[in-house]
């Protein structure tokens, strides 16, 4: 299952749109910490999940996928989880 070639950049853009105030200056890379470096608290993470659902037109709860927010420590973790969700959504759509 092929994902959009710009997938990672789209997720990074999504993250950047949810980062507030002083954290906006932080350069976002795969290893950037979502909480410590980008200041994304639980509400910020929740908002990110909802933005993600809107962007990719998926409903994570309806897909029966459980996200453990505590395990999403870096941008890379988030990209990995996003790839997994969108991949599953595509498979479900095609089947």
């Amino acid at each position, binding site marked *: 299952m092929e994902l959009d070639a710009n997938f990672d950049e789209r997720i990074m853009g999504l993250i950047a749109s949810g980062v507030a105030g002083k954290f906006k200056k932080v350069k976002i890379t795969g290893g950037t910490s979502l*909480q410590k470096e980008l200041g994304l608290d639980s509400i910020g993470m929740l908002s990110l999940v909802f933005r993600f659902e809107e962007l990719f037109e998926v409903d994570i709860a309806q897909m029966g996928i459980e996200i453990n927010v505590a395990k999403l420590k870096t941008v890379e973790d988030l990209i990995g989880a996003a790839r997994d969700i969108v991949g599953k959504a595509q498979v479900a759509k095609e089947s």
Partner: protein
Amino acid sequence: MEDQECNALDIVDCHAHIASEEHTPMSFVEGSVANMVAAVSAQGVPVTAKKLTALFMSKMQDPLCDALVAEMDEANIRKTILLVPDFTYTLKDCRLTIEESYHKHREVLHRHTGRFEVFGGIDPRWGKDGLELFERSLLDFGFRGLKLYPPCGYSPSDRSLFPYYELCAYHHVPVLLHMGPTSPVLDFNFASPFLVDEAARLFPSVNFILAHGAVSFVEECIMMCRFRPNVYLDISGFQATLGYDPAATAVKRVVSVGLNHKVMFGTDFPVFRLQGTQRDFVEVVTAEAGPLADLNDREKSLVLHQNIARLLETGVSVAA
């Protein structure tokens, strides 16, 4: 390293609840969700209360505590104290009566022998019936303490509670009280630790545990613990602060003021299940550079299990 830390410690979670809407009315949940909707909406994200409520309730499907026991095993939590807040007097959409709720908790006690203790809650406005039920909970159900939720609309030093405290003194069981703001459907006027003072002074042989002492009214909770020999605090709910304070500074504060014989570990399961598992929360507290890092092994043991174990064993107020 975190794994090794986690496995080497004996841990008792002194503050948790059964994850089921049987014991938590929807009005309580919806009130809390309203605050989340406001915060998420402020970030320009279109979200409905219905969606957030559904997300939260998806983590509230463990009425027999099987999932909780699995998480306890993974987190090396040997025992958990289940608290039964009595919302039935104030919130009229409770599914069960408080007595029915007690029965469900007793079922869990029997299902998972040795893994749980239960503190039964009663709203003092239930009068004589409530008092009788609470005594039965100690004598017949095997419960080990009293849980009070003052934001339901009463002061912890209200005279109507004194017969309960007399029972607690007689049976040598502690009282755990919710402190601080909570669901907006309740009354925050009764959430202050200083409202416990009169009761703690008049009932010196009863031990009072201030819940969420590292979250709300932190300095007031510390003062009460420092000057009242029979007052303790638990750190449950510390997860609420991790978003803006990943180092859990408030927890570090309460274990850095010479009161580690008064501080107890707690998680407030299942309130923070959207944020992580019991193991995640144990790791935050016990990490090498975490809030307990400056404590020696004896102090860590006090906080993680010995303080609550001592209260359950002896019951009576003993200055540590």
